[in-house]
C-alpha cells in the first residue's frame, strides 16, 4: 500500500486540503477544502456564489488536474465569462487546458435527470476533471422536481456525488437557496460541505457574511464571517482574525510601559502592564487623544513599533497635533516604525478592521496600539455590525493583547453632573485598566480631574488629581484634597462643619513637583 493518504500515527485516512485561493477562507474551513468533497455554495442572487466558485477553480485548476464548469440556465455563460474576467484571479492562460466551460442548459430543458447525470459523468471522465462546478444546480433541481419525484431527485444527487467523488473530483453545486429550504432537502443531506453566503443592505451599507453550515471531516470555524468582494475577488475576515495557530508566548504584565506622562505612570503604580488594554474615558476636549499621542511617542522613543487606528482625525491632522506637542511622529511614520490606520468607510465590520490592524501588527512587530476612538470606531461600522459591537470588541481586544500588544482605547463619555459613567457601551469590562478624565466645576472654573479607576492585578493610587492639557502634553497636578462629590463634577468642601470651605484646588492648580520625563524623554 502506498503511504500516501495515510496518517502514520493512527492509521486513519488523511484528507488532503485544497487551497481556496480566497484570503482568510482556508482558516475558516479549518485548513482548506477537503479534497474530493461534494459541496454546495448557497445564497441569494448577488451574494457572490459564482465568484467564489470561480476563485476556487482558478486557484486549483492545472492542465494535469483540470476543472469543468457546467452552466445550467443561470447566468448566461457568455456574460459570466465577460464579468469574471474583470477579477484579477481570472488567468486567461488557464482557459487553455486547465479550465473548460460546458453548457448543459438545453440538455436540462429537453432531457431527464438520467441524461443530465450521463452528460456530466461523460465530461468528467473524458477530461479527468479534479474540480467540478455546476452553476446553477438549483435550476437542475427545479426542472427535476417538475417531472420527477423527490426520491428520484435524491437518487440523482447521490449518484452524482458518488460518481464525482469516485472520480476524485472536488465538486461545487451552486444554488439560490433560502435558509428555510435547509430542512429535508436531499441536496443538503448528501453534501459534505455547505457554504452559505448572505448579503444584507441596511441604510447605505452592504454587509456580506459567510457561514460554513456543514463541513464533514474537519473542524471549521463556526459562526458568520464577513467578507468583501473587490477586484481581487472575495476576501474573508475570519472571526479568529487569522490567529488560529498563534501560540501566544506573551505574559501579561511582565514589565510596565510608560504612558509618556510620568506622573500618570506613578499613580498607575508604575505604568501600564505590558499586554494590557487601557480604557481612557472622558468627555470631549479632556485630553484623551493627547494621552494617546504621548503613549505612542514614548513607545517610539523606546524603539517600540506602534500603531494608531484612527476613526475621527485624519492622519495628517493627527501628526500635526502631535507636532504641536513637540513630537515628531512623522519621521517614525516614514521609517516604518509608526503606522497610522485611518478607517472611516462607514460599512466596516469589526473583523475587517481587526484584520487590518492584525496585519499591521504582524508587519511592523507592533508593541503599542492606540484606538482613537471607540465611538468613532462604532460609527465607522455598518449598522448591522453595531449591534454586536461589544462582543466584537471583546474578541478584538483579546486577539490583540494575545499578540503582546499594549492597547490604549479612548472613549468619549457624555458628561453629566449627577453620575460618572465609564463609557456609553458598557465595555469597561473589556479593559484591564481604566483611567477616567472628567470636568469638575470648581470655584467658577471648569477644571480637569483624572483618576485611575481600575488596574487589574495591581495596586494603584486612589487619588483624584487635577491635570492640565498643556503645550507639551498632559501635566498632572497634586491630588485634590478637601472636596466631596468630586466624581459628580460639582464638588463641595469636604466638611462644612469643620470649616474647611476653601480647599486647595479653589486656588490656582499647583502642579506636582515635575519629575524629569524619564530617561526616555524627548
Amino acid at each position, binding site marked *: 500500500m502506498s503511504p500516501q*493518504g*495515510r496518517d502514520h500515527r493512527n492509521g*486513519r*485516512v488523511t484528507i488532503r486540503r485544497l487551497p481556496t485561493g480566497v484570503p482568510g477562507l482556508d482558516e475558516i474551513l479549518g485548513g482548506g477544502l477537503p479534497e*474530493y468533497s461534494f459541496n454546495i455554495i448557497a445564497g441569494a442572487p448577488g451574494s457572490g456564489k459564482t465568484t467564489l466558485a470561480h476563485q476556487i477553480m482558478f486557484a486549483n485548476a492545472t492542465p494535469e488536474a483540470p476543472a469543468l464548469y457546467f452552466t445550467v440556465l443561470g447566468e448566461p455563460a457568455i456574460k459570466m465569462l465577460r464579468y469574471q474576467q474583470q477579477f484579477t484571479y481570472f488567468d486567461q492562460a488557464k482557459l487553455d487546458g486547465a479550465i473548460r466551460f460546458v453548457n448543459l442548459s438545453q440538455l436540462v430543458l429537453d432531457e431527464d435527470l438520467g441524461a443530465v447525470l450521463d452528460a456530466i459523468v461523460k465530461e468528467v471522465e473524458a477530461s479527468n476533471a479534479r474540480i467540478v462546478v455546476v452553476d446553477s444546480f438549483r435550476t437542475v433541481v427545479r426542472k427535476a422536481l417538475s417531472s420527477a419525484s423527490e426520491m428520484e431527485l435524491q437518487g440523482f444527487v*447521490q449518484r452524482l456525488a458518488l*460518481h464525482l467523488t469516485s472520480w476524485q473530483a472536488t465538486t461545487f453545486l451552486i444554488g439560490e437557496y433560502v435558509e428555510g429550504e435547509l430542512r429535508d432537502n436531499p441536496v443538503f443531506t448528501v453534501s459534505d460541505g455547505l457554504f452559505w453566503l448572505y448579503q444584507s443592505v441596511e441604510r447605505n451599507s452592504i454587509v456580506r457574511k459567510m457561514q460554513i453550515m456543514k463541513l464533514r471531516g474537519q473542524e471549521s470555524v463556526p459562526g458568520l464571517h464577513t467578507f468583501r468582494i473587490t477586484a481581487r475577488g472575495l476576501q474573508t475576515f475570519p472571526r479568529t482574525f487569522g490567529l488560529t495557530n498563534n501560540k501566544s508566548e506573551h505574559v501579561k504584565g511582565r514589565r510596565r510601559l510608560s504612558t509618556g506622562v510620568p506622573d500618570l505612570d506613578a499613580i498607575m503604580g508604575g505604568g501600564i502592564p505590558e499586554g494590557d488594554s487601557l480604557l481612557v474615558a472622558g468627555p470631549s476636549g479632556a485630553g484623551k487623544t493627547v494621552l494617546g499621542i504621548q503613549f505612542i511617542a514614548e513607545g517610539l522613543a523606546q524603539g517600540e513599533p506602534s500603531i494608531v487606528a484612527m476613526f475621527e482625525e485624519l492622519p495628517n491632522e493627527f501628526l500635526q497635533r502631535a507636532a504641536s506637542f513637540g513630537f515628531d511622529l512623522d519621521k517614525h511614520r516614514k521609517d516604518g516604525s509608526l503606522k497610522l490606520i485611518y478607517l472611516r468607510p462607514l460599512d466596516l465590520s469589526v473583523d475587517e478592521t481587526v484584520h487590518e490592524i492584525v496585519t499591521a501588527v504582524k508587519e511592523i512587530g507592533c508593541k503599542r496600539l492606540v484606538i482613537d476612538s471607540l465611538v468613532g470606531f462604532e460609527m465607522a461600522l455598518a449598522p448591522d455590525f453595531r449591534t454586536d459591537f461589544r462582543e466584537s470588541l471583546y474578541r478584538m481586544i483579546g486577539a490583540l493583547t494575545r499578540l503582546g500588544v499594549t492597547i490604549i482605547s479612548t472613549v468619549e463619555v457624555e458628561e453629566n453632573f449627577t453620575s460618572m459613567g465609564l463609557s456609553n457601551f458598557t465595555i469597561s469590562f473589556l479593559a484591564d485598566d481604566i483611567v477616567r478624565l472628567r470636568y469638575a466645576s470648581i470655584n467658577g472654573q471648569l477644571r480637569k480631574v483624572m483618576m485611575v479607576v481600575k488596574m487589574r492585578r495591581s495596586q494603584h493610587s486612589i487619588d483624584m488629581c487635577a491635570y492640565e492639557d498643556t503645550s507639551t502634553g498632559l501635566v498632572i497636578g497634586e491630588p485634590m484634597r478637601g472636596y466631596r462629590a468630586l466624581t459628580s463634577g460639582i464638588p463641595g468642601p469636604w466638611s462644612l462643619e469643620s470649616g474647611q470651605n476653601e480647599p486647595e484646588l479653589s486656588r490656582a492648580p499647583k502642579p506636582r513637583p515635575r519629575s524629569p520625563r524619564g530617561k526616555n524623554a524627548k
Partner: protein
Amino acid sequence: MQVCEKLQTSVTKFAGSAGFNSLLRRALALARAEVPSLQSLEVGLDGSLKGCEALAVAADAAPDGTVAIIAHLLGLLETFVGEPFTLRLVRETWPDASVHD
C-alpha cells in the same frame, strides 16, 4: 477477473453496487493510462468488466492490465477510506492470503 468479482462482493456490501461500479470505472480509467490495451474493456451496469475475452487474446498485456486495475481499485479505496479499512476488506475477501500492513 475473478479477483475483481470477489472484491465486488466485499465492496458492494458497504459502498453499494453503484459505489463499486463508479470506483471500478475510475480504476479502469487510471489503469488505461498505463496499459493502453485496456481500452477495449468497459464496466457493465452490473459492475462486471466487459471485454475480458478480447484482452485475454492479447496475452502479454493481460496480466499487467488486470494487476493495474486491481491496484488502482485498492488504491482508490485506500484514498477514500484509509489503509486499515482497505486491508480489512482484503483480508475478509481472501482470508487465507498473507497480507501485511
